[in-house]
């Protein structure tokens, strides 16, 4: 029993990690050695790929900063709007709330790629192109359905007596949110924040169409641009180095916030 389980665990780890390890391996290989993978080489190992990526113009960490900036601003904007909305969804009449939840679920399911063209038109007419801060508006809107669903189920799970006790103590709406309710949904807020951040960090089609200045590209677009440079000869070594560098922040994020991510996703599954 246990031996077969260990076998399956090994398979699972291999399946999850092998493609990533291959990128890691590639990133340290010289271009010549990549042409014959299994042959032996004199000059296989090199840091040249990393040097190339980090000294490019703009240097690679620039994209990481851009993505981090967009991620943080969209997360902030999402929470700012989603927390009051989620709270009020618990307080409105039940039938209205049920309808709203169904609508939000539909919006969360919506393949948002289909929106890119009209969003691009909006960006052009409002002159929001090539503006990282402006990107957080569509990102916040696209994350909003899931965020409101997650947070409102957290509010709903709070015993109503807690808020009533606060009311009797004389706390107004804002004070109740500030001193009692928001601190109590802290874990759900953290899960929501991390999911929104991941979405914004990884989003591609809107960033692709809204941002054209090289200095402002987010990580996914920057990496795809490397691929677009030539269809036939992609600098795989340099690219793999970029992949590894681009994955490291997320690796840390997943390891640190693993519990929040899991509870966010599973809460979404249970309550959605």
């Amino acid at each position, binding site marked *: 029993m246990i031996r077969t389980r260990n076998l399956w665990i090994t398979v699972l780890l291999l399946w999850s990690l092998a493609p990533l390890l291959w990128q890691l391996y590639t990133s340290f290989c010289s271009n010549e050695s990549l042409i014959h993978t299994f042959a032996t080489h004199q000059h296989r190992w090199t840091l040249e790929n990393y040097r190339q990526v980090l000294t490019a113009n703009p240097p690679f960490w620039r994209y990481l900063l851009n993505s981090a900036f967009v991620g943080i601003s969209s997360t902030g904007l999402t929470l700012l709007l989603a927390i009051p909305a989620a709270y009020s969804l618990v307080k409105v009449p039940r039938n209205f709330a049920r309808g709203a939840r169904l609508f939000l679920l539909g919006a969360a399911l919506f393949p948002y790629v289909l929106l890119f063209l009209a969003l691009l038109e909006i960006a052009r007419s409002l002159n929001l192109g090539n503006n990282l801060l402006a990107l957080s508006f569509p990102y916040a809107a696209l994350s909003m359905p899931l965020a409101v669903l997650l947070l409102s189920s957290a509010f709903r799970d709070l015993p109503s007596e807690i808020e009533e006790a606060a009311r*009797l103590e004389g706390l107004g709406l804002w004070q109740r949110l500030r001193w009692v309710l928001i601190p109590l949904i802290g874990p759900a807020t953290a899960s929501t924040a991390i999911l929104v951040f991941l979405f914004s960090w990884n989003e591609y089609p809107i960033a692709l169409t809204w941002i054209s200045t090289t200095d402002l590209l987010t990580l996914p677009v920057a990496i795809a641009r490397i691929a677009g440079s030539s269809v036939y000869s992609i600098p795989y070594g340099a690219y793999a180095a970029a992949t590894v560098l681009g994955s490291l922040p997320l690796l840390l994020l997943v390891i640190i916030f693993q519990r929040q991510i899991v509870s966010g996703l599973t809460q979404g599954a249970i309550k959605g």
Partner: protein
Amino acid sequence: MSLILENIGRRVGRNWIVRHLQLEVAEGECLALLGPSGCGKSSTLRLIAGLDQADEGTIFIKGKDVTTVSPVDRRIGMVFQSYALFPHLTVAENLALGLRVRKFSATDQQKRVASILNLMQLEDHARQRPAQLSGGQRQRVALARALLRDPLVYLLDEPMSNLDAQLREDLRPELRRLILKDGQPVVYVTHDQHEAMAMAHRIGVMRDGQLEQVGSPQELYHQPTSTFVASFIGRPQINLLPAESGIIKAIRPEDLKLSSQGLPCRLIHREWLGTSQLWLLESPRGQLRMLTAGDTSIPANIQLEWSTKKEHLFDANSGLRSKYPTS
């Protein structure tokens, strides 16, 4: 009368969960609302607190009509069934939060919190969070918070039901002393008749959103106005015997006596209660509960009798009293 409810009603959808409720509580009086779950006793409490709005009727506190006044301005000291302590704050912070939003100065806050902690013997727990406290300690924190409100009315919603049976009995005298010490009216909701009798000057028995009977524990026991109150008050439960011409005869288990000629019965179950024992008997007129002395032995032929003076008579259709026992 310092708390008056006049013809209070509350509707959810089409159902009246509380209706035609008429109640007066005097200064320094503890009134218990007693009834089965879903009878509207907690809803009544929420109406008094202002957590829900009454759909009809008027509420007066100290002569002032507060029917549409917000919960804060009614000055209510409430203890919830779950205590509703703020789990992310320490005991001292829990107590200080209300003082802070009510704009007490920092030194004033500290002074008041310190003195209430002292009164409740909670000084050692000031920096702990609710999760680190025992059930009894949590109840004291909840009570301390209510006392700090300096309230005009105390409302307690099943404050004992989260505690184990022994602790419940131990805490009753202390709780009663604390809630009555300011001489304010107290409304105490419970489903436990022993607790109601121990805590309250008067008891209001509720059923289906209406007050069935209000009176002292003795009145409820000896002069129940309906079969519902008669069966709800007093354990073991009163025996209800259908009699001729639409009458129900009710007789307390302790008033049944063994005799040589009377109602013939068969013993089907026996419970030992220490100084007494409970017999469950099968008779031609239905099942009977009888309370008898602990040393009574079971006779070969069980026959029962009782004094007609001890009979309560009720109308079979309405369930309402038609004659008091003439004791």
